[in-house]
């Protein structure tokens, strides 16, 4: 029975972490500007994230070590320091974007300006992390995350032309402004394959004491959880394509996105969008803040774990505290949340090799993993992922400059 519970929670966590501000921003823009044509980049990103999540979970089950812990031990401090510093900057940016999403949702619900909510949101998230245990966090954010199903209901209700949707699942060249098309394609991939997902997921597996017997559960969680999150994201693309694209609304600002559910839910559509956005971002913000604390604690060998009291792991707790305060500054100084999100997703896509390459090497440590190591199929797939991440790394920044309107 415990495994079934774990499976359910694992799936919900995967959904909580998957569908966040990055997905909302990139999917709604993709739908509004290119209708169904960019669904393929979500499909590709989902396949890659399923493989990488499955591997990071399998590694944690087999060795009781999360990724940051393993990478430092395997490749040494010198190699790990550079990715560690870069990923810390990325995590602060992503946390800032998530907090921006929550603030914007509260702005929609109350009408008060964004800046007003920056610090209260950071404090609210901090109280949650300071007092709650890991399982309490995992359960609550995940159950609340179910509200994002409203995008799926809306997409089904609007019954889009299935022929065009399926066609969108295959890569195709855009008719107009290709730079923006490829920029959004890269941002979608950057939003889905977020580094914090793997650090949080593998640390969570260690927190939940998963062992080798959990490897099948891990595989199911990876496939169903990530797949489920992807369905919600594709639904968001479809709703934007049906509601916003025909009206010529391009979504340069979240206010434009807030209108997308009203056609399907005339009375509740506006509030539903705001609440879904808030909850998706709360779930993701908590996972990013925790992922940073895990990464710091495991890098320097501190005591760590959400089930410990802050007094028992002072340094772990202070990392997420400082991260939350630092990340809330973006909204405080009035940075535009949508632009911050898109910038972050593009940069996030640029650092993926730092996640994929260590993963390929770690999963081939036969002495440590023995039968849990990568087989030929996962090695070929991972090698292909490494190549993809290098290509993404090379094109993402130039594309942001040229196509990032």
């Amino acid at each position, binding site marked *: 029975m415990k495994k079934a519970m774990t499976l359910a929670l694992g799936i919900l966590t995967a959904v909580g972490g998957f569908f966040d501000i990055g997905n909302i921003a990139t999917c709604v823009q993709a739908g509004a500007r290119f209708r169904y044509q960019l669904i393929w980049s979500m499909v590709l990103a989902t396949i890659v994230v399923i493989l990488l999540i499955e591997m990071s979970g399998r590694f944690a089950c087999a060795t009781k070590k999360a990724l940051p812990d393993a990478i430092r031990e395997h*490749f*040494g401090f010198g190699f790990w320091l550079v990715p560690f510093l870069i990923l810390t900057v990325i995590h602060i940016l992503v946390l800032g974007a998530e907090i921006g999403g929550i603030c914007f949702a509260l702005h929609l619900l109350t009408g008060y300006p964004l800046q007003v909510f920056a610090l209260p949101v950071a404090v609210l998230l901090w109280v949650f992390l300071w007092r709650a245990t890991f399982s309490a966090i995992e359960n609550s954010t995940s159950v609340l995350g179910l509200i994002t199903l409203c995008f799926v209901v809306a997409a089904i209700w609007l019954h889009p032309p299935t022929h065009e949707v399926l066609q969108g699942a295959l890569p195709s060249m855009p008719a107009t402004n290709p730079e923006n098309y490829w920029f959004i394609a890269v941002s979608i991939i950057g939003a889905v394959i977020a580094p914090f997902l793997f650090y949080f997921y593998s640390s969570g597996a260690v927190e939940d004491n998963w062992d080798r017997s959990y490897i099948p559960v891990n595989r199911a969680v990876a496939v169903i959880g990530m797949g489920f999150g992807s369905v919600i994201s594709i639904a968001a693309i479809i709703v934007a394509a049906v509601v916003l694209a025909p009206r010529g609304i391009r979504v340069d600002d979240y206010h434009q996105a807030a209108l997308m559910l009203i056609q399907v839910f005339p009375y509740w559509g506006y509030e539903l969008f705001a609440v879904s956005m808030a909850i998706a971002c709360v779930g993701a913000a908590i996972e990013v803040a925790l992922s940073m604390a895990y990464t710091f604690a495991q890098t320097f060998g501190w005591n760590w774990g959400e089930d410990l009291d802050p007094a028992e792991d002072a340094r772990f707790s202070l990392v997420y505290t400082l991260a939350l305060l630092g990340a809330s500054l973006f909204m405080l100084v009035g940075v535009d949340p949508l632009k911050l999100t898109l910038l972050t997703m593009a940069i996030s896509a640029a650092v993926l090799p730092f996640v994929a390459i260590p993963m390929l*090497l770690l999963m*081939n*440590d*036969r*002495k*440590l993993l023995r039968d849990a190591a990568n087989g030929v199929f996962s*090695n070929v797939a991972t090698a292909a992922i490494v190549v993809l991440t290098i290509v993404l790394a090379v094109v993402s920044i130039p594309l942001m400059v040229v196509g990032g309107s």
Partner: protein
Amino acid sequence: MMQNIHAELLLGRRVLDVNNRVVGRIRSIHARRRGHDFFVEEYHIGPAAFLEVLGISTGRLVGLSFGEPIRIPWQKLDLSDPQRPRLRCAKEELQ
């Protein structure tokens, strides 16, 4: 005379043999436990040694084979200057 050296600072250092030819970079140091002490047995050099540290059997990963790591028994490595480790014999005598 007694000398303390930092093992982690040896890693990556290039080893030259008596004829100043490059043997390879130090990638790992193997030790054996006797009582409470750990005595250095051999120094492992070269790319194959690097993969050995990562637990990756060379053939499997990419199909290339880096061969066996170069093993230097502790007596054969002169560490009087840790910045420039030197082999006390010619490269060929190692195999």
